């Protein structure tokens, strides 16, 4: 007897479709040795940079860790996201995914949430630093928490952008290079030296200040690192991430015309 549609339609909701893709993707991350290599390299690099400054400054806080975090994420996030769609195209599984009874946005969101979860697990790998600081002194845990929150939102935005870039190119390396380049622009345009140079080139236009205030993600991230969790910054990162996820779903649909 052929199956009726009713039971299938019940299970075709937004959460169900996203969860099915999420479970497959998260399994694929932790099933692959590359994920462990990424995680190890990131943790080794971020921790060693922090420990170096920690021993030089002898201050019981993590501000140095979070100051360097955006620059590490610029390299680390595109390395995670470059395979998101490029691999589907190279294996031919894009066709398989796009003929399953799931909306493009469910698939995009499932993949995005899986990469975000993987990123959170890697960020959580730095908790031993917090424990070390607590054993050595009395760090400001509220500040550490808000800084982690800033790191989470920044990573979430870079991931959404990286997943989008992976969707518009079929080559992993092209997706990596383009994502790294644009994420670097978002970060470097807020770096004090860059702002100074651009302001100095045309003082009457204040190009550097304009870039810092209008283009860079750093002012929004830095407010988290100062212990300020403002609704404006949360909305800023959330809207940017949502924008690129929606764009990703649209470009996937357009690619089939």
């Amino acid at each position: 007897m052929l199956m009726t549609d009713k039971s299938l339609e019940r299970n075709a909701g937004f959460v169900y479709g996203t969860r099915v893709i999420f479970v497959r993707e998260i399994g694929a991350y932790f099933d692959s040795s590359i994920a462990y290599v990424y995680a190890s390299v990131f943790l080794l690099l971020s921790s060693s940079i922090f420990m170096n400054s920690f021993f030089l400054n002898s201050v019981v806080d993590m501000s140095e860790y979070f100051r360097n975090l955006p620059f590490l994420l610029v390299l680390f996030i595109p390395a995670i996201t470059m395979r998101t769609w490029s691999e589907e195209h190279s294996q031919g599984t894009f066709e398989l995914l796009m003929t399953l009874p799931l909306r493009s946005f469910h698939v995009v969101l499932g993949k995005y949430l899986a990469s975000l979860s993987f990123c959170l697990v890697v960020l959580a790998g730095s908790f031993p630093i917090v424990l070390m600081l607590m054993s050595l002194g009395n760090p400001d845990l509220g500040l550490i928490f808000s800084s982690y929150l800033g790191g989470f939102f920044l990573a979430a935005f870079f991931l959404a952008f990286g997943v989008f870039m992976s969707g518009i190119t079929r080559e992993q390396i092209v997706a990596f290079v383009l994502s790294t380049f644009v994420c670097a622009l978002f970060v470097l345009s807020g770096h004090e030296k860059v702002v100074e140079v651009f302001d100095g080139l045309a003082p009457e236009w204040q190009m550097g200040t304009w870039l810092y205030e209008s283009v860079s993600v750093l002012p929004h991230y830095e407010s988290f690192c100062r212990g300020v969790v403002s609704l404006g910054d949360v909305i800023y990162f959330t809207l940017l991430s949502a924008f690129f996820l929606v764009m990703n779903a649209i470009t996937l649909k357009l690619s089939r015309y």
Partner: protein
Amino acid sequence: MVSVESITKKFGSLTAVNRVSFKLGRDEIVGFVGPNGAGKSTLLKMLSTYLYPTSGKLYVDGLDVMKQPLAVRRKVGYLAGDTPLYQEMRTDRFLEFIGKAHGLTGGRLKERLRWVVDACGLELALPKRVKECSSGYRKRIGLGAALIHDPEVILLDEPTHGLDPLQILSFRDLLKRLRAGRVIFLSSHIISEVATICDRLLVIHEGHLLADGTLESIRRQEELGGADLEDLFLHLVRKHESSKTSSKNAHDGQKPRT
């Protein structure tokens, strides 16, 4: 059950499918024959909702493929030509993933998994990663994934490619068992194979549908009684080429001389 109405698909300046129309009914196994690049896969991709047609209409069980793609996907089981599978996944987990994506859960999912494993002979492949399986097994895993939700319309692009003779025999047997209540539409460039399996043939070349009917009816229509299928196919292709040349000459002859 399936209605294709004047479908055209263009990729830039290339017209892969050119105003093709036909209908498929239940209990039919229909073969789609043509050389490589004839437009078979493109048409199957459009029926599977993967590609959007440039013009024309496609209906599956009365559902507009363009407007109701999700409802169409629940009715269609599609095996793409290059058998795309997640190579790193274990076969059992892969089939479970496809089943869940089709909305199957609990007892129904287990029941369908059991059926697919038995029907496609996948018992030995279940604990292996897909990439560790032979090409024949991979084809059967793809077939299992296409059938797991018990579809009413089964679209198979070069389904026997990579199968050994014994596997081809059991595949034919499976199709015969599946025929009742369903439409099975399969493409192949191996004409004799399609003639063995199918009740009806569609012949396509350079995006044009050259013939539609049973082998006998096409023979009668072309006045080639007794011709084998290869000869019949060559005749249709040559006829198409010569009509193309004559229409081109007529078009050139109408051009004003300068």
